[in-house]
């Protein structure tokens, strides 16, 4: 898919007499500037997430929520739901952990995979997207992102149930 798109685009452009290499370099410069511009935002957020996770605060909050939600949503996947919006690699690591413990064909394994695939790291997206243009007042964007993550997680459980039958 990707190589076809890449080569196809360059070839198409060349046929339309676009100076392909020069055009590529001009566009590519923007990429470097953007990456450098987001470093402060990323460092700030990563530090907070690390402190939150390594200190055991995440675990403690997960334990608290698990009591409320057991029976409705499998507790094995709950930390991932909380982790998903704040750390993409964190939730991916957690998904791998679920797959390894319960097996790739397990119900919870499929649920974890579906959640990982159907949502994005809201906090990272907000940080990078708004940070790159210097937006500081994000209005309701964080609320919308986090709420739709919750909806996606619930919808994932329903979808896995619909496709693979009830848990167990």
């Amino acid at each position, binding site marked *: *898919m990707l190589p076809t798109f890449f080569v196809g*685009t360059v070839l*198409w*452009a060349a046929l*339309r007499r*676009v100076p*392909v290499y020069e*055009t*590529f370099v001009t*566009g590519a*410069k923007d*990429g*470097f500037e*953007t*990456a450098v511009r987001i*470093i402060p935002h*990323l*460092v700030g957020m*990563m*530090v*907070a*997430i*690390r*402190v*939150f*996770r390594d*200190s*055991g605060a995440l675990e403690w909050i997960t334990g608290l929520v698990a009591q409320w939600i057991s029976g409705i949503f499998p507790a094995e996947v709950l930390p991932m739901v909380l982790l998903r919006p*704040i750390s993409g690699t964190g939730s991916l690591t957690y998904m791998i952990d679920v*797959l390894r413990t319960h*097996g*790739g*064909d397990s119900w919870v*394994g499929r649920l974890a*995979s579906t959640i*990982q695939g*159907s*949502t994005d790291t809201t906090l990272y*997206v907000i940080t990078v*997207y708004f940070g*790159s*243009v210097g937006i*500081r*007042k994000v*209005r*309701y*964007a964080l*609320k*919308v*992102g986090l*709420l*739709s*993550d919750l*909806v*996606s997680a619930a*919808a*994932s459980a329903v*979808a*896995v149930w619909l*496709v693979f039958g009830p848990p167990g």
Partner: protein
Amino acid sequence: MVSALWLGLLISGFVAAAFQGKIDIVTQSMLKGAEEGVAVALGLISILVLWLGVMRVAEEAGLIAALARLLRPLAGWLFPSVPADHPAMGSILSNMSANILGLGNAATPLGLKAMRQLQELNPDKEQASDAMCTLLALNTASLTLLPTTVIALRMQYGATSPTDIVAPTILATAVGTAAAIFLDRYYRRREARGRRGAKK
């Protein structure tokens, strides 16, 4: 709100560590987090440079304009404040297309480009515009049809049919994206009502 969450994460982490008497963990975590932040940004350089380069070529070749025509009715409804012939519309449309195909690496630079172009239309450079919020809602909900990384990892961890989660993923993504679009509109209306109320 990001500021409040940031403070919340830091303070609760600090308190939790202090409570367990292992406060030096915070020092290590801060340094590690900073290192990770830089590493992620540096890791993004290659993909950002590559894709923005290719997308510039695609743009010059008229590919984006062709794609934009196809999805324009939908985007026109989602982004009423962006003029149909503004370059931001093209970037938004390609960002959406890349997300749909699961090309997350391509979607991000395109989304960032759309943001920059939306910022040109934005009267208040410090506050997100309506269109920026909608673009973000679409991207955080992640309109995905093919979760490539997840499939690869499932392969590695012994799933007999690694792609069997594609159907539930599409279902969940559709519901999540619909919710994001609805919530975006709902909170915008509420904010507008609040402003009118404050003026009275």
